[in-house]
């Protein structure tokens, strides 16, 4: 009779399959954004301008460290990453074409994604430590390792979302262990990875309140946490100029919107803005009302719901959906049945982006490192317009229907997270 896998065997098997899957994707797929990102990194390494307040300093320094080490293995021709004007650092298709045709393109892509891979495994470790129940832990790890959204965002599109998610998961873990100061620092560091994390700040501060403690002590804790986060947030902007950093190295002076994190958050497109405000305000009340629960539980649940509200009414890039993954997965620790909504969400995300893609974000353009013949191939809206639209449902209508369904799925997710704690079953 075959014995079930023990925890160690399960972890080894799942990790082995996941690592191989990631290795298979790493060198062969990318979006032009990954090349633009590393063009900036190589520019800084080349020019020695290390103290520039780049868009996301934590991500930026991690990438810079790996790029610096990679120089031992890759002789990057200067022409390939040449950036004549840093304020125009988004690569043109011509520049990207040179990159794609470079004989060493697979090395670059593999090395560029290495930090993401390590932080991805770091998230696995965080989830493993965060979820106590062995069965729940396995479900959580499987959801993380094999969900198509983070696999796509990290290894096919080639963006750094997992670094930000790692810091958020680490924050939750520190809260679980009542290490509030570490949690504050890690949360503040996450703000230097993605501006969206500012959305969680009120819920993080509310989660620090312990309703069993005196209000003065809580006031001190929240005040101290706020100051710690604020100091870490503004530290680079204050410190780097003193170290000779140029604060506007990659900022396009002709750009219409500000580089400031809060403005970026507000400037993202919303289908309908007021429900977001109403939803987040209501969520803050809910966060207060569940004050009897553990710090980490409050943080994880309210952050997950905040994202569901945000994504329900927001126009987002294809890889931003990766932000939606970590908090629902951590919710499994609190017996939330998120597997079915997670599967439905993944499927809806694929269908939505097949319909909504432009020529590059969800097409075989991402396989162009393998061959430039893939550019222009696999454009689903073209197929849809040819075969489905003439039967009555045009592309715009189909996209609107999928957006509406996506909102419903966010509601389904929220319902399952807000439900009273129940035993988790695989759906």
């Amino acid at each position, binding site marked *: 009779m075959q014995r079930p896998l023990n925890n160690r065997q399960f972890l080894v098997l799942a990790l082995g399959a996941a690592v191989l899957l990631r290795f298979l994707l790493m060198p062969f797929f990318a979006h032009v954004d990954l090349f633009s990102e590393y063009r900036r990194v190589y520019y800084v390494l080349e020019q020695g301008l290390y103290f520039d307040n780049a868009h996301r300093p934590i991500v930026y320094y991690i990438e810079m460290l790996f790029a610096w080490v990679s120089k031992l293995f890759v002789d990057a021709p200067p022409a390939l990453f040449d950036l004549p004007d840093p304020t125009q650092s988004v690569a043109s298709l011509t520049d990207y074409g040179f990159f794609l045709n470079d004989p060493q393109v697979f*090395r670059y892509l593999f090395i560029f994604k290495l930090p993401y891979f390590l932080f991805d495994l770091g998230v696995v470790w965080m989830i493993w430590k965060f979820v106590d129940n062995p069965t729940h832990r396995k479900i959580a790890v499987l959801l993380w390792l094999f969900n198509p959204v983070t696999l796509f965002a990290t290894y096919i599109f080639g963006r750094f979302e997992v670094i930000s998610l790692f810091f958020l998961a680490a924050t939750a873990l520190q809260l679980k262990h009542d290490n509030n100061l570490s949690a504050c620092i890690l949360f503040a560091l996450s703000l230097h990875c993605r501006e969206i994390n500012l959305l969680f700040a009120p819920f993080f501060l509310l989660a620090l309140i312990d309703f069993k403690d005196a209000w003065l002590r809580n006031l001190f804790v929240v005040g101290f946490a706020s100051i710690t986060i604020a100091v870490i947030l503004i530290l680079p902007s204050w410190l780097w100029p003193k170290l000779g950093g140029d604060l506007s190295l990659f900022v396009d002076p002709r750009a219409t919107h500000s580089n400031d994190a809060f403005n970026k958050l507000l400037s993202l497109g919303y289908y309908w803005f007021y429900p977001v405000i109403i939803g987040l305000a209501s969520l803050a009340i809910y966060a207060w009302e569940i004050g009897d629960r553990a710090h980490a539980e409050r943080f994880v649940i309210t952050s997950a719901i905040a994202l569901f509200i945000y994504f329900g009414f927001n126009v987002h890039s294809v890889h931003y959906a990766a932000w939606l993954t970590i908090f629902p997965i951590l919710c499994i620790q609190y017996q939330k049945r998120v597997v079915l909504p997670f599967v439905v969400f993944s499927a809806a995300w694929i269908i939505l982006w097949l319909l909504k893609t432009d020529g590059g974000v969800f097409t075989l353009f991402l396989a162009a490192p*393998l061959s430039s013949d893939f550019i222009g191939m696999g454009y689903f809206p073209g197929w849809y317009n040819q075969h489905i639209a003439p039967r009555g449902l045009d592309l715009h209508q189909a996209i609107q229907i999928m957006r509406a369904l996506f909102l419903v799925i966010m509601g389904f997710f929220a319902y399952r997270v807000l439900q009273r704690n129940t035993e988790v079953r695989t759906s």
Partner: protein
Amino acid sequence: MSKAHYRKLAFLTAVVLMLCTTGIAQALSLPKVESHDLVSEGSRLRVSGPDAYITFEPYRSESSGRFLLLNLHIENLPDNLDAVPFELFFSALSPAPHAKTNDLVFDPRYRVRLSVARPELQSGETWFAVPLPDDRPPSSQLRLDFERCADCSIEVLSHPKVVLSAPDDMTIAKITRIYNGVNKLDKEGLTLPLTNWELHDMEGDLRSLSVTGLDPFMTSPVIDISTKDLAGIAVTLSRTQVANSDYLDFQLFYATEHHGFRADASALVRVKAQTSNQYRFFIPLNHLSEEQPADHIVERIRFDFLPEESANLWRIKAVKAINKAQMADYQTLTPPQILINKQQRAGKRQLLVNVMKKIINDLAFTLFYLLLLASTAVLFWRRFKI
């Protein structure tokens, strides 16, 4: 019967014979043509698609005739068309054994581009003569394509005829381009002549070029190279003054039988400015014959210098078409920074081959990568089995 009756009978017989002879002659002179993207409206053919042409077997008065006589009447020509363009294909290929249609296929390497003045096709005498190339391949069938004639109504008034010489008073069509075969590359490739190149925003000759404007390029004369064995173009040039930028961009355009010079049929290379100012590089064009839709002839090439902010001086030392047999020798001259814009796509099998070739091209990485995959699999499996 009286003599009068005999006379009447003779007269009637003569009339009947005359009518019969005229009828037969008229029947014989009715043009027999097959058409494509043309619909028949009585004796006329109206253009109904983007690729309108007629195919026919001309009468031959001489086996080695040098002129094709055509008698066409065309109406509804575009208002702004003073000279009506045609394309005459003169080498029909044998149908492929498994061809799905009975339509004749004409070899694009053998054709004449011509134009006829508008009045010649619309009033009075509508005959005109098309000079045919000497030493053309034998073919009983010809094909005449109607260009820029989307709404035209065409009447073929007489059956086309090949003759040794055109009547003195007949209009001779203006020939704009003759394709009579292609230059096949031998195993040593083909060195292109450095004479008769057209210059734009440049002056001098190829051995001493000076840039005079912001868009400098040079266009080759007609070269008509078969793409069958063409691996690419190798260029050797030097700069006779110190470079004022770190990198130099060059762009090679190629005009084929399907298109002129266009950005999506070009290759852009970026090379580091050398202190020696000597440059030699190879631009692969093997995709032209290996991928679809294939181009068969490279008619001309154009070489652009980008960017050229200042008045630079260049010397072109050699431009050579490279045979596929020489590919191994020239592959190393391909600049690492190259961007090939092409209209062709590799088929599924060829695409797979190209992908594998590209991966294996970085052999060190491929070995590392395979080792990494194998060792990862073994490592996890061993840990799992403990």
